[in-house]
């Protein structure tokens, strides 16, 4: 089975929820999700963040839904790491 192991996303989010709550929400999507967040830019109402997600099998649809639910939007997928099936 082909799985996504790593994603780096460029996200525009409002100030609330804060970085910790945002990461906790993303990490709750599945088992053994590791989330790294760096704030790239801050303005009056929003902040641009770079989120690195690593997990054995990342569910991008769920990640996208959670981001949308928190009022943020994914501007770009900057990095992807996918692992394919081992050849028999």
């Amino acid at each position, binding site marked *: 089975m082909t799985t996504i192991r790593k994603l780096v996303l460029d996200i*525009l*989010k*409002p100030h*609330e*929820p804060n970085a910790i*709550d945002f990461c906790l*929400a993303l990490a709750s999507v599945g088992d053994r999700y590791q989330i790294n967040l760096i704030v790239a830019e801050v*303005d*009056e*109402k*929003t902040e641009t963040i770079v989120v690195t997600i690593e997990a054995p099998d990342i569910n991008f649809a769920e990640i996208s839904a959670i981001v*949308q*639910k*928190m*009022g*943020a*939007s994914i501007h770009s997928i900057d990095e992807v790491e996918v692992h394919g099936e081992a050849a028999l």
Partner: protein
Amino acid sequence: MSFVLDTHLMLHILRAQNIARRYFITNGFDGALTILGMVTGFYISGMTDISIAISACLGATIALFMSGLSSAYLSEKAEREKELLELEQALIRDLKTSDYGRASRYLPIMIALVNGFSPLILCLLILSPLFLAEQISFLFVSPFINSIVIAFVSIFLLGVFLGKISQTFWLWSGLRTLLIALFTIFIILLFGQ
């Protein structure tokens, strides 16, 4: 409208508790002072017909409830919609289905309920001696006096609550609001004569 409130939506609601607390105190104080004034007016006029006093005070109580409910809902809804629009413009996306959008729909209702029910509950509490006038006739004190005492206690407790919020000495805070109530009575008595 779905009432499934998850963690992030609850966070939005909890952050609005300052506004709700402010409305609780402001409108509660309004209601208590209004009914105190009415009951004092009935007492010094020598009114003996409790049912007329109850009708008048209940009318004022209901009006305060409706006023609190509607004014808070309309003003909070306008503010939340303005905030949501500004955020949507900054994020360049529709936020109606996000936690922000849901909070902007729930919060005005929550705050309106606080703003409406705070004077309603306090006013009904102050009027309770009038409702129970026959049952408490053994006290040999006018039910209006009992209502006035309950009003003073309610206003004092509102002051104590304010003191807890501002972390000042509860007694001074309670006495301060009680002083306002006493001054109100003084003015009523002055005009009454």
